[in-house]
């Protein structure tokens, strides 16, 4: 998977998104086994339309069932049919979230706290802050929480607070 290509496509179409999940954690903290890119998109019609354009450029495919799996349609309204989508693209797996558990309805707030950075090849992205990543983990059922990630996040938050003092 070429993560740069996925992020570039979103950037080129000016999609308003936040990088979340394992890839965001990996880019900021520690290597973690993760095989898809998770993005949280601003859930507004114009943004979903731009997202759909980016997805089509990425060769994204999705279906209501595996039998209906096919390239995403021209009309972006399918993106309003449910809260999250696990897609394939020619550059790898992409998960699109219209809302995120633990942070429901707080996209703008999280975006303000988000950290803008760039990948090794210089592709810019804004990722969920450490505090918000931790909130997401804490909202998961205990069996699904990633303990190492939570410990690292807590340590990073504590360190950042220490430095502010």
């Amino acid at each position, binding site marked *: 998977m070429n*993560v740069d290509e996925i992020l570039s496509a979103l950037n080129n179409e000016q999609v308003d998104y936040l990088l979340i999940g394992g890839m965001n954690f990996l880019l900021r903290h520690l290597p973690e086994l993760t095989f898809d890119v998770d993005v949280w998109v601003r859930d507004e019609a114009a943004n979903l339309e731009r997202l759909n354009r980016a997805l089509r450029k990425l060769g994204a495919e999705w279906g209501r069932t595996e039998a209906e799996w096919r390239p995403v349609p021209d009309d972006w309204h399918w993106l309003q049919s449910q809260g999250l989508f696990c897609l394939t693209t020619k550059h790898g797996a992409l998960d699109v979230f219209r809302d995120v558990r633990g942070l429901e309805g707080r996209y703008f707030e999280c975006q303000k706290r988000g950290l803008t950075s760039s990948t090794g090849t210089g592709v810019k992205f804004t990722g969920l802050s450490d505090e918000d990543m931790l909130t997401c983990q804490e909202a998961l059922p205990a069996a699904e929480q990633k303990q190492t990630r939570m410990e690292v996040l807590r340590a990073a938050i504590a360190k950042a607070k220490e430095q502010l003092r």
Partner: protein
Amino acid sequence: MNWDHLKREEERKRDAASDPAQRWIHIQQTITWAEANLPPHLRRNRPRQPRRTSFDRSTLESKGRSIAPTLADKLGDVAQVSGLAIRLAQASRAGGRLPDWLLKVAVERGAKHYQRPFDSTLPPDNPTITDEEIGVALCLGQHPYNLDHLRAAAQLLSSPRVSPKRLGWLAVLERCEPVMLHIAEVAARFGPDLEPWSYLRGHLAPRPVPRTDALPHWSRLVSHTGVTAFGGPPRIDWLARSE
């Protein structure tokens, strides 16, 4: 449908719909990409600092000269006073800090695997000094032994922008044939046609030295990628220069 159920169902559907071979390729690419994007100190194949005891040879100084072993010492060879080193020390304005400056410049020019914080007071790169000169100078026998210098030279020189002829000529002039041929032999295992190494194997006359165990093991000149939770075969790539 609740959130967890939806997520699980979406993932199941994608797994069922996607081509396993394609997915495998994407997983391999993800690992490679992730490795390249990790901070250098977290990479699996990161350069390791040599362990230091509280009292060792490298901490001693005698009459202003470090008695840390040189590369030539390690090879059982005699170090010559290099004309190239004198010229580069002047041209770069690095003086006695030439080895550090060479490593910094090699990294800036594309030996990115060896990225690390460098002394900010080191002089900037000098574009009049060629890549071949930087690469050969990193392998001079007179420098204190530092495996990373040889590794960085290998990555810097693994580029189509390097002139094999000029590199070979400089290697003979500066008595770096053992190091260059060692790297060239290792490169043959991963890319038989990889230049400038292919040319050096064919044209550089060997100059045997008593010991070669101080030269980098093949595993120190490659990137190991593709070790996955799925038990797939690891992928080993020659560390070419980041152009």
